[in-house]
């Protein structure tokens, strides 16, 4: 056993209202620069839908992730090292601007400067790629809320796989939102695809990053990632990706997407895993058992043997404590309600999802039945095959049983809490029907429904004995470090914050003559 720590995220899809606040705040923090106009480290997809980039889940086309060869060994789906080097001059699997969208702005100037005339001036869309006029035809979530689904819905790779069973007629349609960030996989195929060795997984917390100084722009990571969450900055010629806001995590703050989520549906926490068994889990021959294999390498942070091994690996005490309080471990392993996205890609993704019960409840309520009655809910889960088969294609490689189990737990929690809230006699059989005790059910309810800030985010700060001099007091909104005096050549080559800092700290830093003049007590 070799214990490693991994920062993970869980998203509770029942709570996602598709507002895209996470996408916007992430973009403001990280990708509001030329070259990454089209880049969404975080995006929110309506499912069924094509996702971003269009149809990225069709790995027969994009060749992302891993596969097993005939002898059951793990191989990159796009081919190994020699094939990668042979196709380096033209990557055959690289999505291009048409698969994402052509970013644009509007010619706002013409609204103000157009000469007087008979017509109202208009702001025409201008391409940010060519500066020319363009026709806006697609963007990151063009099929939001099933927009155009009667025409485009069948291009969703999962819908195509399920055949005619998914209907887009208004009465039969279902939908939910799927927010996506980088999965920070335990077995990342982007890292394995990088010819330069510029991508790496951090030993301490498993965050997958691109070293901007080592990246040479070979773009194999972009095609190697099955989730298409590594992007090509077309101005710098380098790869960029979600950093899990590591500058924030290191000082104990949640990611920007989590912090600003109005539905409070995101959870952040550590899991411990056995690094010696990663290959074993990723090579599980049966795709439908990959989810279980992935969970099996996660270690119980309360097991004394695991703790002893973790200490031997040098994981600090406060990190072990954080792992014990981790909502991610609880939701994925203790309550067993969080599922990985597309485990069949064999990357062992570490962003987990609690599948939504809402398509079932909505359909049930529309028929005039009580959407909180346990009998009705269980019956509806059994009867409503289509949304569940769809969810199973997303989260369990098509196996509907684990999805059913999760939805039954959520349904039972819903019914149980109604009896509690209405002061009715508590029926222990509801919890027992899904293999839980009342105490477990109520603590799961507290985590999922009450979802206190300190329960959602259990983030140990990074270890360094240096004072946290540049820790901000308040979450500010400026990430602009541009020198105000226009003199860019001054300043010691000392660490400079890449996290948000408050106005006072920015001012103090800009005015300080020397790094040592800064007030380190803040």
């Amino acid at each position: 056993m070799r214990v490693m720590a991994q920062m993970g995220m869980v998203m509770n899809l029942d709570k996602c209202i598709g507002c895209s606040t996470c996408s916007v705040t992430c973009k403001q923090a990280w990708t509001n620069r030329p070259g990454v106009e089209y880049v969404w480290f975080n995006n929110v997809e309506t499912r069924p839908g094509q996702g971003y980039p269009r149809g990225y889940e069709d790995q027969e086309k994009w060749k992302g992730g891993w596969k097993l060869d005939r002898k059951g060994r793990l191989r990159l789906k796009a081919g190994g090292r020699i094939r990668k080097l042979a196709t380096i001059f033209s990557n055959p699997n690289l999505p291009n601007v048409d698969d994402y969208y052509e970013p644009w702005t509007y010619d706002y100037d013409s609204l103000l400067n157009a000469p007087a005339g008979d017509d109202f001036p208009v702001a025409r869309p201008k391409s940010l790629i060519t500066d020319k006029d363009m026709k806006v035809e697609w963007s990151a979530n063009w099929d939001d809320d099933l927009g155009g689904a009667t025409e485009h819905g069948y291009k969703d790779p999962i819908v195509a796989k399920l055949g005619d069973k998914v209907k887009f007629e208004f009465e039969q349609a279902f939908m939910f939102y799927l927010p996506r960030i980088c999965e920070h996989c335990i077995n990342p195929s982007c890292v394995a695809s990088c010819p330069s060795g510029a991508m790496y997984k951090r030993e301490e917390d498993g965050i997958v990053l691109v070293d901007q100084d080592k990246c040479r722009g070979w773009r194999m990571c972009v095609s190697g990632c099955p989730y298409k969450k590594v992007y090509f900055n077309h101005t710098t010629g380098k790869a960029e990706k979600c950093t899990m806001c590591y500058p924030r995590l290191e000082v104990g703050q949640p990611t920007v997407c989590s912090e600003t989520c109005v539905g409070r549906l995101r959870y952040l926490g550590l899991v411990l895993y056995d690094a010696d068994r990663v290959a074993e889990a990723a090579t599980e021959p049966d795709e439908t058992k990959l989810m279980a294999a992935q969970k099996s390498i996660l270690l119980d942070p309360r097991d004394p043997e695991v703790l002893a091994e973790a200490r031997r690996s040098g994981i600090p005490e406060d990190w072990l404590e954080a792992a014990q309080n981790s909502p991610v471990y609880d939701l994925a392993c203790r309550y067993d309600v969080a599922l990985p996205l597309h485990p069949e890609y064999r990357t062992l993704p570490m962003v987990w999802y609690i599948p939504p019960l809402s398509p079932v409840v909505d359909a049930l309520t529309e028929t005039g039945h009580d959407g909180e009655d346990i009998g009705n809910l269980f019956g509806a889960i059994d009867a409503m095959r289509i949304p569940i088969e769809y969810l199973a294609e997303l989260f369990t490689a098509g196996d509907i049983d684990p999805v059913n189990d999760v939805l039954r737990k959520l349904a039972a929690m819903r019914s149980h809490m109604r009896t509690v809230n209405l002061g009715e006699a508590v029926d222990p059989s509801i919890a027992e029907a899904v293999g839980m005790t009342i105490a477990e059910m109520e603590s799961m309810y507290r985590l999922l429904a009450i979802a206190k800030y300190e329960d959602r985010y259990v983030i140990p700060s990074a270890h360094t004995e240096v004072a946290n001099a540049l820790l901000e007091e308040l979450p500010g909104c400026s990430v602009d470090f541009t020198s105000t005096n226009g003199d860019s050549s001054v300043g010691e080559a000392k660490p400079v914050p890449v996290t948000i800092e408050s106005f006072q700290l920015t001012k103090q830093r800009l005015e300080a003559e020397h790094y040592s003049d800064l007030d380190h007590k803040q």
Partner: protein
Amino acid sequence: MSGLDTFLFIVFPYMCLVSLVVGHIWRYRYDQFGWTSRSSQWYESRLLRWASPMFHFGLLFVLMGHFVGLVIPESWTTMVPESLYHLMSAGVGGIAGIVMVIGLIGLIYRRRTTPAVFRATTKSDKLMYVVLGTVIALGLTTTFYWQIIGGGYDYRQTVAVWFRSIFYFNPQAADMASAPVLFQMHAVCAFALFAIWPYTRLVHVFSAPVGYLWRPYIVYRSRDVGGEPGNRGPRPGWDRQGGMSGNRSENNYR
């Protein structure tokens, strides 16, 4: 041997090589972030799909030919029969050259006609294209004029001797001065290309990722030793003077 010969075949090559070596060291130390192939495949891949591999693979074969002809002494290559050597040099070299030129024409056509790619073309790219295109055009003309139409010129006795002598620091300019003018022009232009090399996107040649063949797939690295959490380490670059306001990491994201 005139003063011009001395300049063109001794002074100029050394100037260019100094620029090549010093330029690369300088850029490697101070501009890791700018060191990239600057691929434009994201904008357009239909033309790139055939043009880029044709150009690059053709070029690799041409470079191998140059290695055989210039670096390996004639006493070694004469072990191969003269007619076979000539067939290989003119035949394989000619075919590789044509493949490379078709690829290059495709790439230049693509660069000029695809608005997104043309907009992303820098002045350094344009200069590089002119010099590289001239070197290739002269090289191919030389091959066709002397080796295919003409009976074959044995550059191994003049050009190759001069080329190697540069690296022994005992330059034999007289040998090169006696070579046909097309060879001379090709060689001088090639040295000009070496001179501008470090300041263009051509640096990507020296980061060919052959280490990938032996590296383990998954790379682990410890958190950057930058000091405080939430900060990054010091950046390579010009030594700074004075206060705190300058900031390299921000430049990297522009």
